[in-house]
């Protein structure tokens, strides 16, 4: 059974929106990072869907790139989170507001 493209895209959009909202409203950096992952994976889902629909491998290839970038990003991001926590004993973004006017 083939899942029709609109369903896949609908799920992808829903996931992306969920991730974006999470990034915008959550205070915990760890959760923000997770939401970022969710956004990336929503995009991956859209790639897969299109690749299947158009019978082309380009989409699947891109997914690998995105996965790689996501892995690297999480590595750097978590390292930063650890460093910040050591400095300020907090992982809440609204405590990290000194870089301003």
């Amino acid at each position: 059974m083939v899942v029709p493209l609109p369903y896949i895209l609908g799920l992808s959009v829903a996931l992306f929106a969920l991730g974006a909202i999470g990034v915008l409203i959550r205070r915990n950096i760890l959760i923000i990072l997770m939401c970022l992952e969710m956004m990336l994976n929503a995009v991956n889902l859209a790639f897969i869907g299109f690749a299947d629909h158009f019978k082309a491998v380009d989409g699947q290839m891109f997914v690998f790139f995105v996965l790689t970038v996501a892995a690297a990003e999480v590595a750097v991001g978590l390292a930063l989170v650890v460093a910040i926590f050591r400095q300020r004993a907090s992982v809440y973004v609204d405590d990290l507001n000194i870089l301003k006017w």
Partner: protein
Amino acid sequence: MIEYVWLIPVFPLVGFIINGLMGHRLPKNVVGTLGASMVGLSFALTLAIFYEYLHLPAAAKPVEVPLYTWIASGAFKAQVAFLVDPLSLVMLLVVSGISFLIHIYSMGYMHDDPGFPRFFAYLNFFVFFMLILVSANNFLMMFVGWEGVGLCSYLLIGFWYEKKSASDAGKKAFVVNRIGDFGFLLGIFLIFWTFNAVNFREVFALASKYPVGSGIITAITLCLFVGATGKSAQIPLYTWLPDAMEGPTPVSALIHAATMVTAGVYMVARCSALFTLAPVAMMVVAIIGALTAIFAASMGMCQFDIKRVLAYSTVSQLGYMFLACGVGAFTAGIFHLMTHAFFKALLFLGAGSISHSVSGELDMRKMGDLKKHIPTTYWTFMVATLALCGIFPFAGFFSKDEILFHSLVDGHMLYWGIATAAAFITAFYMFRAVFMVFYGESRVDPHVAHHVHESPKIMTVPLMILAIGSATVGFLGIPILHGAHRFKEFLAPSIMYSAGHHEAHYSISFEVGLMIFSMTVAVAGIITAYRMYIRKPELPNLLANKFKVAYDLIFHKYYVDEIYDMAVVEPIKDSSNFLWQGVDVQVVDGAVNGSAGVVAWLSANIRKLETGFLQNYALAIVLGVAVIVGYLVGL
């Protein structure tokens, strides 16, 4: 020798450079000797050139000595070149000769002044510019000298710059002179615009093709005359000269009596070819001259500062010279310029010697009975006074009489009347000064009185030389006798009458009668002064009280300074204040500061966007993406 004429101004320039740069490190006698000897060299060279010029064949005269081309731009060409002709030779001799004596005098007079080297540097610099002025062969170079002497005049009036009145007087002289210089400059522009040349001889040759009374020539000459009124202290720009007496006395003698202030007369005589083409301008010159002569003389009557009396006298005598030029008797004007240089320099130096003897006092009310204390000064001062009053056989008699004669026969009865009245006043105020200073009871401050002393030799010797000059130079221009007026004959080639001029001949009895009359007038002035200041010393005060209004008017110099202040200075100050406080501060600064203020206000508010909250930025990114995507998909 004539080709070395350029050396004449160079000598004082060398003196200026050495004294100006290193004077403060040299001993005083070196500074003074250097300054004086440089001018002395100029004088010697001038004499040599004068002698050579006399023996040149007529065809070779006048001589132009080009040094180099100063400006060559298209049709415009100006050279640094010297014109050696009778007029410039007379001026060179007067300037360098009188300057030399005054330099020597200054070595004594300024001896204890801390600014000694500076004084000699400025004085040399002045002589340099003055020699440039009178020896230039074109208007532009003359203008350089013209401005230069103005600068030196300013520097020397304000020589004692710690004194507020002196620095104010310097500024006043400079500003008033600028007004005149502006007219002169306009005249030069007009000359170049009309004739496409600035060289005197070219301009005069071209001008002779214009009809008498042509508009452009009249405009040129009037502009030039505005320059002359500024430099030569004529109505309406004379007010700076009395104030210029704040400077050291040798400066008053050299710059503000003998040389610089006569530059205007020299310029008018030099441009005789232009002025004779413009009867209107000639009339203006004559009227201004006559009015200045009587106006300034009357102001001299009520002054108590001896130098101010002499200053008004100078203004008045310059008026005579312009009157002479205005009626076409240019040689008489220059003749009077020369004799005046002798006796007025002598009077000022004498005044300096008087004030030297009474510890710097200049107020004649605090003098009196000085005759026996300072005999040399007294005798020389007396010679100069007699010369100024026009008593035979002193120099002033010949020159002033010639002016009176010409103002009657070539001018108008009215000119002659005014000039004769001024001669009466001149005799009166000069003898008033003599009587107040040398005769009567001593009113000298008791602290000063016990060491009243004659000046040193270095000051009295120049006085004596000038006294000999004041007594004798008049004989260069003996009237009536045919061929005896050597001065006039010598000068004649320099004076160009563009509009046919004829020497009228008058009967000897007429000329002699006029002379006797003008002498009588002068003697009457002397007798009046004698009656008022020797016989009845209480009379002046009685008269002053009786004619209080008139006395006040004259004593306050007709309130001319106050009127100028009110009519010119204050409005200019007000408008400048408006331009400063209104236009500059409000509009110009307002625009600059306002735009900066707007930027600062915007920045202060826009920076609030930088909250430092990560999620605000993230929201901005999301919104941005939404906008871009929306645009791309064509919403």
